[in-house]
């Protein structure tokens, strides 16, 4: 079974993130770049399915030059090859454009299953997997905490407030996963060394038959018009409990129109 994992490189979640003046896009050089956390779970799930069913795991990413570092990390975890969509014109692409590009790139690989994370930590739209499945015209199974493949049927468990839904679809399909699904492995030393000789294909827009005016800031369906820094947190109010603590808290909440 051949699997493609959609992996996004994002700024380190623990670092301060900045937008750049001019086009209001994320300043990706301002902080360390890491694999989007949930995508590590998607990679792990791909590797587990490969270990159970055979086949290959391909990492597909659209991102700037240094996204190769993240591809190498995924390869050192055990993925077999990488596809990197790299083109300056992609800068500022919206979710719809991103999905269009990813779907085109998926046309260059053979796959039975596409696995994505359920959300990227930088822009948190949670929409790319759905858009990709739409563009490909295949089933979408989102928010999986468990994935099983039996012949040409893929079944997932999707967590709900009260329990879980069992969702079934025919392969090929796009599955997005949540963190409950597994425990991603660390790359091993051997894996790091082996990753160096694994193939990574770089694709430009023209390789995908796309023109620069179909992607990037110019083609985006949404734009960031303006932004403001979050105001610094104001000092808290300390209420000393001198027997009237409950009333004081209620008064405070009422003054904020919270109760």
């Amino acid at each position: 079974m051949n699997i493609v994992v959609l992996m996004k490189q994002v700024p380190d979640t623990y670092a301060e993130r900045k937008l750049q003046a001019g086009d209001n896009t994320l300043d990706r050089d301002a902080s360390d770049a890491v694999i989007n956390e949930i995508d590590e779970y998607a990679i792990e799930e791909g590797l587990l399915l490969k270990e159970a069913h055979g086949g290959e795991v391909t990492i597909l990413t659209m991102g700037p030059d240094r996204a190769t570092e993240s591809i190498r990390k995924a390869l050192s975890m055990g993925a077999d090859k990488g596809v990197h969509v790299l083109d300056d014109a992609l800068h500022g692409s919206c979710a719809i454009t991103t999905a269009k590009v990813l779907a085109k790139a998926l046309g260059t690989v053979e796959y039975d299953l596409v696995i994505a994370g359920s959300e990227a930590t930088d822009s948190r739209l949670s929409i790319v997997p759905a858009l990709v499945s739409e563009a490909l015209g295949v089933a979408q199974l989102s928010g999986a905490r468990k994935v099983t493949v039996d012949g040409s049927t893929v079944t997932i468990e999707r967590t709900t407030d009260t329990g879980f839904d069992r969702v079934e679809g025919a392969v090929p399909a796009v599955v997005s996963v949540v963190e409950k699904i597994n425990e991603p492995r660390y790359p091993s030393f051997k894996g790091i060394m082996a990753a160096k000789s694994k193939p990574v294909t770089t694709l430009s827009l023209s390789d995908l038959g796309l023109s620069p005016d179909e992607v990037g800031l110019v083609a985006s369906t949404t734009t960031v018009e303006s932004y403001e820094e979050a105001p610094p947190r104001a000092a808290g109010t300390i209420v000393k409990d001198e027997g009237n603590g409950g009333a004081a808290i209620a008064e405070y909440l009422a003054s904020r129109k919270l109760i």
Partner: protein
Amino acid sequence: MSFELSADHEVFRKVVRDFAEAEVAPHAAQWDRDHHFPVDLIPKMAELGLFGLVVGEQYGGSAGDGVTGSGPDFTALCLAIEELGRVDQSVGITLSAGVGLGINPILAFGTDAQKERWLPDLVAGRALAGFGLTEPEAGSDAGATRTRAELVDGQWVINGSKAFITNSGSAITSCVTVTARTGVIPGPSGDRPEISAVIVPSGTPGFEVQPAYDKLGWHASDTHGLVFEDCRVPEANLLGARGAGFKQFLAILDDGRIAISALAVGLAQACLEESVRYAKQRTTFGKPIGARQAIAFAISDLAVAVEAARGLTYKAAAMKDAGRPAAQVKQAAAIAKLYSTEAAVSATRVATQVFGGYGFIEEYPVARFYRDAKILEVGEGTSEVQRMVIARGLGLPVE
């Protein structure tokens, strides 16, 4: 000349750091408090390949097959020890001793049959092994070994005791290599003992593991005294040539010293990071203590010591990886170990001073670091022994 680690080494360091921060750091204080040896961590460390960095592929390691592949990577091992030691010295020594004292003697001197029997489990983290050299009456003077092994009816019969043996009594310890007198070698200036090394499987009748020591530090490391009473093992368990035991352990110790040096670098680095963080945040007399030269300069000196120790350590490791002559590696190892371990002990004194009263409270890691540091100046050859080795390397007629 390059002072940079390779890109592969940097990537590997980052992986071990991520592992150390996620899987070790959150538990370090608790394991220390409970004197708990984290046996479940060993297979996880092995999944990263940490026990196989100097071992060939046929035993599950990453050091190639002798013809192709990258060969043993001692530098990578030092990086792993440093990064684990940065959050938990006990875990760092467990790796250092696991490879340096458990795996290395068997790898370097074992027969194919011995390697096949012991190495795969040790590399996969299903087992740990120890090396028993020190005795209650023979430490720095390891040649004074009193333990005896006598060949009777095709078996070695071992009697004696060992002291302070790391990884010797954990739930997964598979064997301990012990040095013992196996006879006397007559010489012109009198007889001297013939010392050999023998592999003793855990659980062999007559091999008693004593309760764990109550140590000042390294609470989460496994250390026991061992007693042998008519303990019988097959003749084939002799490790290396008969009578070569003394020479063998001297060779093993050189690697071990570089590893301990890396462990010390991890500790000093942790002290530096903790000190910088705390000095920025702790305010006295209206200013952060880091604004006072007394504190800032002490931390500056700490940064210098960390860099110097790291440089000496990785220079020695690079010499080892480059296959430089044994005498040169020995000298570099002793220099690195001496400097780094003394720097680490000083670093814990500085860090606890920066923390003031809180530095004396176990809630803060620097208190644990302070307790963990002292042994670095003692294990795998005391500072005095390192000075002895260095002086001899300089050709001085030191006694």
